[in-house]
């Protein structure tokens, strides 16, 4: 498989941007990727996929109106058609006084080592062996493990380039590799299932032991789960699940949601929106994070963005458009797929560590739930109203000790309350696959619904 070619992508993006007619701004966002994915089942390869993909998204702005079109090919003919289509779409958009492309803002890009040659150089047989070995390890780990639903190894190389007629011309590439496994065990008439994963930049940074141990220990802890009685409890979020909740919160701190009156934090900069123990930043320049990247998807150099400082709201995440609207500078938080215009996303959320790890914090909880998985987030969480109601599997905690495993229950509160009520912030920073550096959090006053 041939790898990506950042220079060629930049040249393509530059060629498109150079076609801006007088009075026009043009931006081309070009992406390219290759990936290998192996699924193992019962000691054999169930499927092996090797594929490449490419895309281009073109924005054209004239007199404040924006037209957009995309295609899944870098063919000259198709690129030309796409530019024409974007121009064709333009007259139907309304003039927008904040429309405009990014311009270089003098921030230096952080040098980050996010690409590993190993992704392309490693023979596929070794990748296959990872998936097969992972399944074998999980099946052998404990007699109660009945089987594996899926064991897979995936790695990918992605490259992008973005160029504008306003002076942006950047590109870059990165790699990622991960294994994941989901294991099954009998539980009376039904079954329990639990997963584990390990992520890195290439095959040698991925740990089969970590993935297998996580899957098996979570699986065995679920056997004998019961539906709990309803109660008001202290929620114990381990770093992985803290990352999930903070990801939702960061979506509510996007400049576009704020400007359009869809964020409950909208006009609250300077106010106490979280516990004084909570300090949260988004920092894609941090090499410890798997979300670290030198540039955002509009081509601006990424930087550290404070969000909460001792619970006080510092500001929002912006792309060029939302920043112009808010009368401030972009925080280089633009995120996109080639088929869409830029949105806003945190990449590397970090919680400033407090004190204590999971076990020491759990020991302080009299009546709680240690969650191992949260579900139904897309159906039970409303980022506008702040309603938060999710399914939970995990352990009851009583008198500082782990008690019975629970299932078929929900946890409910509001996102506003969850942030304010955090009573303890742990010191156990763990970097998650999605880029967040999570820590253990304790949040009292959460409704557990069961029997």
């Amino acid at each position, binding site marked *: 498989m041939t790898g990506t070619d950042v220079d060629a992508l930049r040249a393509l993006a530059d060629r498109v941007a150079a076609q801006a007619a007088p009075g026009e701004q043009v931006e081309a966002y070009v992406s390219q990727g290759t990936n290998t994915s192996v699924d193992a*089942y019962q000691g*054999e*390869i*169930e*499927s*092996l*996929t*090797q*594929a490449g*993909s490419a895309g281009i998204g073109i924005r054209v702005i004239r007199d404040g109106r*924006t037209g957009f079109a*995309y*295609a*899944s*090919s870098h063919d000259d003919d198709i690129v030309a058609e*796409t530019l024409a289509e974007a121009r064709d*779409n333009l007259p*139907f*958009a*309304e003039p927008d006084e904040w429309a405009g492309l990014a311009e270089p803002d003098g921030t230096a890009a952080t040098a980050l080592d996010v690409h590993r040659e190993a992704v392309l150089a490693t023979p596929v047989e070794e990748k296959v062996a990872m998936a097969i070995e992972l399944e074998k390890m999980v099946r052998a780990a404990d007699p109660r493990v*009945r089987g594996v*639903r899926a064991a897979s190894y995936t790695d990918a190389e992605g490259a992008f380039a973005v160029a504008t007629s306003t002076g942006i011309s950047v590109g870059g590439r990165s790699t990622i590799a991960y294994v994941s496994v989901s294991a*099954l065990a009998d*539980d009376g*008439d*039904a*079954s329990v*299932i639990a997963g584990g994963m390990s992520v890195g930049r290439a095959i040698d940074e991925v740990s089969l032991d970590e993935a297998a141990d996580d899957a098996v220990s979570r699986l065995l802890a679920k056997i004998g*789960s019961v539906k709990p009685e*309803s109660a*008001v409890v202290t929620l114990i979020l381990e770093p992985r699940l803290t990352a999930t909740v903070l990801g939702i919160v960061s979506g509510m701190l996007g400049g576009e949601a704020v*400007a*359009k*009156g*869809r964020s*409950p934090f909208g006009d609250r900069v300077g106010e106490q929106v979280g516990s004084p123990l909570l300090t949260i930043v988004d920092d894609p320049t941090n090499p410890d994070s798997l979300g670290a990247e030198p540039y955002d998807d509009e081509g601006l150099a990424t930087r550290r963005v404070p969000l909460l400082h001792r619970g006080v709201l510092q500001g929002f995440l912006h792309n060029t458009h939302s920043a112009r609207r808010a009368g401030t500078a972009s925080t280089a938080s633009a995120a996109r797929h080639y*088929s*869409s215009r830029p949105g806003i996303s945190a990449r590397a959320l970090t919680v400033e560590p407090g004190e204590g790890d999971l076990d020491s914090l759990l020991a302080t909880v009299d009546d709680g739930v240690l969650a191992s998985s949260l*579900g*139904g987030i*897309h*159906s*039970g969480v*409303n980022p*506008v*109203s702040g*309603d938060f*109601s*999710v*399914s939970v599997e995990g352990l009851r905690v009583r008198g500082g000790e782990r008690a019975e495993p629970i*299932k*078929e229950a*929900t*946890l*409910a509160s509001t996102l506003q309350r969850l942030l304010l009520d955090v009573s303890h912030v742990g010191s156990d920073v763990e970097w998650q696959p999605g880029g967040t550096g999570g820590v253990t959090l304790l949040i009292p006053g959460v*409704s*557990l*619904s*069961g*029997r």
Partner: protein
Amino acid sequence: MIEDPTLERVLARALRTGGEFAEVFAEDKQNGSATLDDGRVEQLSSGRDRGAGIRVVVGDTTGFAHTADLSEQGLLTAAEAASAAAREGGGGVREVALTRRDVPNPSPVSVLPDDVPKADKVAILRQADAAARAAAREISQVTASVAGSRRRILVANSDGLLTSDDQVRTLFSVSAVATGDTGMQTGRKSTGLTIGWELFDRIDIDEFAAEAAQMAITKLRARPAPSGQLPVVIGAGSGGVLFHEACGHGLEKDLVDKGASVYAGRVGELVASPLVTLVDDGTIAEEWGAFAVDDEGAPGQRNVLIQDGVLTDYMWDFLRSRKEGRAVSGNGRRQSYKHLPMVRMTNTFLENGTASPDDVIAGTDHGVYVAKLGGGQVNTASGDFVFGMQEAYLIEDGEITEPIREGNLIGNGPQCLQDIEVIADDFAFGGPGTCGKDGQGVPVGDGCPTLRVAQLTIGGTSS
């Protein structure tokens, strides 16, 4: 999209180093959408995604490669890659002769979305925006969007099958935010069918937008939802999501085979109340999950999954059907040519009962009425599933009273199906939905009559 002789050569190349089966799935998808947000038409977007995915099966191993290059050389290269991925030694020449089989489209299209002048699309959005804002002074934000897609697919395989489909979908949605003393609330209404722009001949845009706005207004006075188990009445239409999660995924044969379904080994058994007959049917004209052929080339089909409470069949994909020596079921679907197909639902719905919907509510002392369900999620191994309540009310002494805030309900699939106490006679299809499984989204429909479940857990905050 691709000439027959090219397909035959590509399939032969795919099997050149051995294998039992090869397939070329080609797709040409055009999308166009327009969105009005914050009082502005801010985005007209269009795009095209075209390519082919090639599968080669050797024993229990599938090799897969995809390409955006539909030239013969591009396809031959992908065929080689798929074949190499399936990793079989041994040679042999395979010749493939294709026989075209056309399946009539259940949903004829009058007006292609692409042929509609952009100005007309914008006019719809402006009308919806005005109507939603006019509904009440508390409406503080409105989003309206229209989208049309045309997906042409071609399936050719080494068994000699050659078939194609042309699937057009049109979608309209309006969301509103209401702001009041209790904070902000949202309302959303969407409609979509597997037809063209003639969808808009059937919609009263003013009424539609006003209803979305009204949902948000009503929730401004919503109470915290109860916490704990209560009888739940599910309204006709969107309640189909409950069955999609309670047993739909659990009846997908790939999950059954992997020991990841509570419904494994239960064909022929009573798995639900005898009132329950559950169907998955890709032939229902115009519904969001309808098609002429699935993404493996099998014709869409009506499949009764549960008959009078008894589990009658699972849903199958092509390879599993082949292995079992049985007929296909029309449930092999994929998100795009870049993905491998899997067992997926189409339009999944509960058939009518005989009660009157008013009696169902009147017969509920104290419970919750869910007028509109949001999405959901299921753990098929344990059977536990959740679904969201986008519009729900308390039932007190047999009457619908106060609105309650959004949240999830949770239950256990087999237990919930047994706990269905009464089913009304007012069947309705729900709105367009996207079903997610292993990272792939496909369009699905659902539906049900009003019904009551003896108890489900409401994930609220009020004891």
